[in-house]
């Protein structure tokens, strides 16, 4: 089995494409650091008198709230209230607003998980479809190895590639962030608001881990569905196209249709678990447990479909 995974790794890492993906991710991190740096320079940096600033800001926010009355929507009001609460929390607990730091940057760079997901989806979607479109599948399946083992090895290699990209992103973000903004900031707690706009704090590294961890769930689901598509389609370019289409259209579609309650059973309404940490769920009434169950069901379905199709399929015709 290890030999099979090794073989699949050879097929992934001996391709130029793979290294281009790695380089693009690194470039994206660096570009993000440069942009963040510029933005923080153009803003007035926080003076030592941050308390004064926060008090002023809160006064302004309070005035805006009072003046606008019922004219602004409830969500905007909640947002304003949350900001006021956060500022007040900082004043009460003597926590200055977060400066840019390696940790803070690593946290922001989690948004680049989109790229990781994109690249991992391409590799997973290509994994089996390319064997069919190149014809190499015929020489692969006439070895004394069961098809299910080959399928498992390919899935494992796809996940390992995704993991390699995550590790690359995390290390690159921390290093680049550290070089650009300094490595301190570890002790600064991360503040977040719950649904009732109450402010809580958690250690920074825990928040960074949680963010990456939850985005990994999304990644895992995307890789798995791309892998299934790879089994179903014989053309690798078509498999990649369909996977990416789902990746980009899926969550948008869910947002557009979010008024219907059945939307909560769609995979893409549940893949982003960070919605339960910050902000509100796409569809009202969804809970973390609900999402985990839905994801688990999809996960099992994808694997069963992949397995049945791959082990039973006739390898014939042109591809």
């Amino acid at each position: 089995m290890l030999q099979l995974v090794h073989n699949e790794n050879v097929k992934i890492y001996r391709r130029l494409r793979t290294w281009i993906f790695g380089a693009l991710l690194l470039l994206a991190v660096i570009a993000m650091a440069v942009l963040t740096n510029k933005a923080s320079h153009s803003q007035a940096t926080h003076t030592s008198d941050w308390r004064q600033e926060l008090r002023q800001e809160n006064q302004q926010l309070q005035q805006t709230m009072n003046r606008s009355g019922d004219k602004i929507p409830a969500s905007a009001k909640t947002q304003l209230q949350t900001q006021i609460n956060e500022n007040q929390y900082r004043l009460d607990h003597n926590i200055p607003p977060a400066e840019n730091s390696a940790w803070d940057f690593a946290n922001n760079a989690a948004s680049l998980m989109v790229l990781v997901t994109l690249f991992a989806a391409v590799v997973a979607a290509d994994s089996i479809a390319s064997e069919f479109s190149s014809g190499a599948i015929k020489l692969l399946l006439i070895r004394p190895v069961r098809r299910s083992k080959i399928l498992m090895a390919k899935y494992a290699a796809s996940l390992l590639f995704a993991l390699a990209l995550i590790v690359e992103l995390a290390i690159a973000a921390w290093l680049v962030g550290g070089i650009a903004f300094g490595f301190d900031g570890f002790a600064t707690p991360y503040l977040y608001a719950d649904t009732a706009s109450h402010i809580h704090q958690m250690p920074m590294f825990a928040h960074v881990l949680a963010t990456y961890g939850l985005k990994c769930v999304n990644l895992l689901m995307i890789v798995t569905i791309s892998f299934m598509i790879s089994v179903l389609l014989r053309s690798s370019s078509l498999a990649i196209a369909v996977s990416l289409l789902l990746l980009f259209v899926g969550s948008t579609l869910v947002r557009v249709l979010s008024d219907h309650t059945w939307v909560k059973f769609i995979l893409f309404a549940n893949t982003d678990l960070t919605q339960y940490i910050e902000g509100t769920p796409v569809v009202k009434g969804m809970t973390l447990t609900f999402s985990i169950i839905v994801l688990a069901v999809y996960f099992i379905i994808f694997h069963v479909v992949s397995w049945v199709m791959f082990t039973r399929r006739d390898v014939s015709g042109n591809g």
Partner: protein
Amino acid sequence: MPAAVEIRELTKTLGRRPVVDHLSLDIQPGEVFGLLGPNGAGKTTTIRMMVGLISITHGHVRIHGHDIRTEFEEAIRHVGAIVENPEMYKFLSGYDNLRLYARMHKGIGKDRIDEMVRFVGLESAIHNKVKTYSLGMRQRLGLAQALLHNPSVLILDEPTNGLDPAGIRELRDHLRHLAENQGVAVIVSSHLLTEMELMCDRVAIIQNGRLVQVQTVREQAPQEAQWVEFEVDAADTARQVLADAGQKGVEVRGQTLRLAAARDDIPEINRQLVEHGVAVYAIRSRTKSLEDQFLEVTGGGQHAAARSQ
């Protein structure tokens, strides 16, 4: 001796149409067996069922007694194959491709890979990427891949596709060698009769998925013209002797004379040479085929001879 491959009532239907229809065959160790039929006769479908690439509707395939369906791993272990074109990973070198396949079998080391590379004569290009290979080179790599794990059953689907006449001859020599010296059961498919006649011991003719007949390829008839080579000590003298005796078209290559002659004429030619004081070290006769004539015209014969040495 039990059959290396036993095919019984093998049937494959797609929709309602039988592509392969109750086909039964036994292929013995040490023979080169041909599947002959027009395109679409069901040769490739039969081969795909034999190696487990497609499901079997009815009947069975046993390889050394192991059913390909129920004991896939045990059965396929004995099989080396190329199905249609040998398509491998183009972004890898030939050598890396072979290493991939070697890892999927037990106990294939570097020595065995190198041995196979030498056997198919790919030493000089084996570390280049496969995308730079010609079709002929891919066929060689395909053969190396199929032989890597020392299979006792070798299945080649249209193996001469894309090979030049010299390459075809070389392949034929390889297959002969494997069958005769190593007892491998070799199964090849083709739609070309002449090719099958030259390559195979027995040929199964298939049409519309059905077995028409199994034919043992006939021995060379004694009266037919053939190439005869005389290895002598003085080639020029010998040529003069034969010219005086009225023999035409005598070729000289080093110490060897080559001419077309019927089998019955060989003792007479030899007698004349000996009477004129020419020492004859060896007499070899070879079948003169259509292919030989083609090779003479294209000059591929020398090429093949040089490569097989």
